């Protein structure tokens, strides 16, 4: 039985691949990077948006859609940055930018307060938000009540059966 189950799991899991976006970033060692966008199937993500965002200010330093070649060669900014591959709602990939050969020019410790929000990789939502807390609490309460009523009524029925004998 265990063998059958593990074979079934293996069968299903080996086929669980998605049509997900992948971003590759390569250092060209000449103060430029090559950013490539593609799907896990190998298909190029032409027309997906590539953005470079400054980590300190959240400012968009550069943005362009991927051309037909599926990759862009970009100058490395002088300040810390992140590269964003925006494939539309629910498909955002973010990677921290590669530093230039001589390092970032001025990494200020007292950086300005962030004005714009940085893009974040799309992950599952915060599962402990208010509705989840309320709904899970209600579920636990109902489970408790269910066990209580079940026991109470089962005892009643057992008593009736015994009396019947």
């Amino acid at each position, binding site marked *: 039985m265990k063998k059958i189950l593990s074979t079934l799991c293996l069968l*299903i899991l080996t086929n669980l691949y998605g049509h997900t976006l992948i971003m590759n970033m390569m250092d060209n060692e000449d103060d430029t990077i090559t950013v490539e966008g593609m799907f896990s199937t190998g298909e190029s993500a*032409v027309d*997906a948006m590539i953005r470079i965002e400054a980590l300190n200010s959240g400012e968009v330093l550069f943005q362009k859609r991927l051309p037909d070649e599926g990759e862009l060669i970009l100058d490395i900014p002088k300040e810390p940055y992140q590269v964003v591959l925006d494939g*539309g709602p629910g498909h955002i990939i973010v990677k921290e930018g590669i530093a230039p050969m001589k390092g970032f020019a001025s990494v200020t410790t007292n950086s300005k307060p962030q004005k714009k929000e940085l893009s974040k990789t799309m992950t599952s939502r915060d599962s402990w938000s208010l509705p989840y807390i309320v709904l899970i609490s209600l*579920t636990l309460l*109902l489970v408790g009540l269910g066990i209580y009523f079940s026991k109470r*009524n089962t005892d009643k*029925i057992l008593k009736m059966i015994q009396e019947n004998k």
Partner: protein
Amino acid sequence: MEKESNKLLKQRLQRVHVAAGISFSLFMYIAVFFGIFAILLPYIQVWEKPSRHIEYMDVTKVDYATMIDPVISDPNFPTNNIRITLPGYQHDPVLKVSHQFVEPIYFDPNTKEMVAHEGDQSQLAMFLNHMHYGRPLKTFGYIVFGFVAVGGLFLIVGGLMLVVMIKYNNKARKPVSKFSKLHRKILTWVFPPFIIITLTGALMNIGYSSSPIMTYLVSKGETHRVFDLTSPVLFPPTKAIEKQHEIASMLPIGELIQKASEVNPEIDFQQVTLINWKDKSAQVKIEGYNPYMPFLNGISNKPSVTLSAVDGSLIQQHKVLDKHWSGMFFDSMYFLHFLFGVDTFTRLLITTIMGVSAFGLGFGVLLWLEKKAKKFPKNVPFYHWMAKLSLSVMIGVLPATGLLFAMQWSLPFDLEDRFVWQSGIFFVSWLATFVWSLYRINSYQAAKEFLKLAGVLFILAPILHYLNSDFSLMTLWAQGLTQIVSVDIGLVVFGIILLIVGFALPYKENEIQKFWSNDL
């Protein structure tokens, strides 16, 4: 000897049918119950959204340029393969401009203004559809519902064999005999559509995910992904058309649709793909559905007409029968499950058949429970976990779903996490019906309460719809939004039926016996 072996076969077949039946029945019921709403999905998804309370417009009379041009002129908007979904597609009255990598934009074709699409805030129809195939439980749900479909196939075949092999007594008037008769009769009558829907359901839920070994063998070790083999045939990639980098003026989309209709008048056009738009090489691929060839098109096989957007000349035409036979076979299988492009009458017919099937499954469970109840003394109530679970799953789902509909128009559309609240309260209320089933010793009494509550909630849903939208029954009717009015009427009628059944159902032991002994 032969007689003995025949008797043994019947006995074993019956036992395995009962064991598999009671194991799968509740899941099958869930799939069938929510499947009914999935059949009516196009109407519910229009009813649920304020942004869709707009009139339908003739696709050839829509002023596309006013709506589309500002969107595609945005330098940040993709320039190629922009999809325009025409008003009326899947009964949705809006015009949708979309691209793989951007959030879709919706327009009211009557006013040419952008509509405030509710997005994730309103997912009632999709949620009901997801419940149909176990999607809320993700991979686990797909696998469970997939195996339930396989179990369903086994039960249908085994059940039919039993009907042929065993001479059942149809004249007995005891509840057990009545449940047995109704279970057999109903499912014998509905088995042809039921078996097709179950088969295609099994294919979709676990057919693909369990195909790697067969794919690996068939491809002689080349791949284990089934889509690597099927995609080139079912969805062949379109060749990129080289841009000429010369700006050209485009013909109006309405005119191009008109031209496409002249090329192939049999197609109901649904989507337009803009290729190299505004360039001299620009093309439009206008695709749709050919209602004269049902079964053979609609999913992978989409008849299309490709025209030059500059002068409207015909570049390519794809007719239904141009597709590889495997594509037509694929579409016919899916057509039987999705009812793609069918009219309202057919949808209602299939809804009725599925509703009757749900009763068939219900009588099967009642039969099993009635046999269990016989083991208890007559003056001791039957209090069994399976009876309570079945009651909650099969009848308790009604008030929970009624609440889901009522919440659609009572929860504010700008409420944060609106869908989480709505779906969460649905699950909690469904669980609450299980607790109530355990609280009430008399299951019939609990069933009556669930039915009455469900009736009130289903009637309340359209009332809340009128109170919380800017529409009344009269304004909807006057504006020709009959589809939305029909959903309201359907909900009220369903609610009234539930109330009638709720009041008519007996709950005292002697009345129950009398009720099931009557001719139904």
